[in-house]
């Protein structure tokens, strides 16, 4: 059930994405893919509405992706983001300690999202 206050807006709370979803990074060359998988089917629509390619590009602004693509997997309640040119050349070229960009899923999962208060019981962790 969704609660609506007097102003007609949905009662929401702001949480980091990692409470609503989990994910993993993969790399090929200078391209990174990051999955974002809803912890519950009912959270999926919230993620689709808010975790947009534009917001993901903004979250990775220092990595300056040349393109951010989002693929939807509704039967898995998941999204797959593909970020081009975010690995400073990739595993053989980057000067980063983490040349694979394996840590990047946690940068994405740190993004704030607003979740209807009615869905709060579905969130993971504290």
């Amino acid at each position, binding site marked *: 059930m969704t609660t609506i206050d007097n102003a007609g807006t949905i009662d929401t709370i702001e949480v980091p994405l990692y409470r609503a979803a989990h994910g*993993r990074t993969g790399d090929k060359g200078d391209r990174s*893919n990051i999955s974002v998988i809803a912890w519950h089917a009912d959270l999926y629509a919230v993620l689709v509405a808010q975790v947009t390619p534009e917001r993901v590009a903004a979250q990775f602004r*220092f990595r300056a992706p040349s393109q951010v693509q989002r693929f939807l997997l509704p*039967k*898995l309640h998941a999204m797959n983001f593909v970020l081009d040119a975010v690995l400073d050349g*990739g595993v*053989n070229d980057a*000067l980063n300690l983490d040349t694979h960009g394996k840590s990047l899923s946690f940068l994405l999962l740190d993004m704030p999202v607003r979740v209807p208060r009615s869905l709060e019981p579905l969130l*993971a962790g504290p």
Partner: protein
Amino acid sequence: MNSIDPSTLLIGCAAGFSGDRTDAAGPVVDTLIARMAGAPAGRRAFLIFETLAERTLALAQLRRRADPDAGYEPLLDDMLRPVLARCLAHGIRIVSNFGAANPRAAARHIARMARELGAGAPRIAVVEGDDLSGPAHRALLKEALGAQMDGIRMVSANAYIGAEPIAAALDAGAQIVVCGRVADPSLTVGPAMSHFGWRADDWDRLGRATMAGHLLECGAQVCGGYFADPGYKDVPGLEAVGFPIAEIDAEGRCTIGKADATGGLVSEATVKEQLLYEVHDPAAYLTPDVVADIADAEVRALPGTGRVGLSGVRGHARPDSYKVNVCHEGGWLAEGEISYAGPGAEARARLAADVLRKRLVGLVLRVDLIGALSILGDDAGRALAATPDSGLRDVRLRVAATHADRAQAERLAREVTALYTCGPAGGGGVRTALTPRLNTLSCLLPRGAVPVRFELLDAEALA
């Protein structure tokens, strides 16, 4: 609880990369043996090891140059010796890319190992055709890569070849198939093609087996490895995380579980993370065998079994070309680190970075402040420039640069070391490293230009 469908094919995976745990195979083999024994005669099982990544082959090629009998997986003996005799005794066949840059030498090593173990003389096949580093292929690569090939010092060139030669080797009676650069999922598709007699254009079945192979190919990553996040994603017994076993049916559908008596867990969450790992367009996962399509895939836990089912995978006609990776010498990577602690530590680390930038003219430095901002930063330093000093009291400065000329790269190590006496106060724990780099070029080559084959090696070839 362990309801057994005797018609399913069992495939266990005991390594997900070169350098994986070498005690992984034992519990996988024990579990395969138990599941074979619980079923009527005729149930088949395979053990696969996936040990290659983009860099691994180039490093193997360098070892082969130094020693013609080297160039295969350095941990081959540690991985295989504990389980080889049991696999042969129970009819578990072995398929792996641990041949790396020298499958024939790996095959000789395995034959020797079997003799030492008193396990007889197994029928070993090698799969070849992926290695394009010889002079005969130079013109072909030049045609595909053009000016990028000019002036490079090539170390390795390999096509990602597919499952067909593996299936053919198994059909010919091989008990062990040693490959070089075959695509990771092909290690699973080959046994399934051979076992079920699928045609090479049975796209849906090949697509399903490919995604089963994709779930297996990173070893523990589908069993709770690379998953744990305390309080959010808790994994029991991570120190003894199990490795995966797929059961594949005649349609290519699979369930994924793990070795008995191990830690970890296989859940919908672990399977979904691994299913999407290194996938770009989910409707078009390109492999040499098939274009697999998981856009409508479903993942369902099978209650009471510890297993998860994968369904809804489709396949489309395979690409007309092979992906080829060319590795070449890429100059030198220089790295240096120094730590600062206590009041003003972050300010002193930042000052040290400033000193290095001013002294190392001609080198483009990456700067990390480990403890403040490091691996989430960018090589150009945009993120660090936007991050003000937050007064951290335990910071490790790391700088890195690359240069074609070794002497230029060495300047970085000397300047970091000189911070001991010439830099900010209280710097300690200097470490420096100079590493030769390998760079990669990629291209596509028509399948017809890359003939692949298998060969069942005779006693003379294995001596």
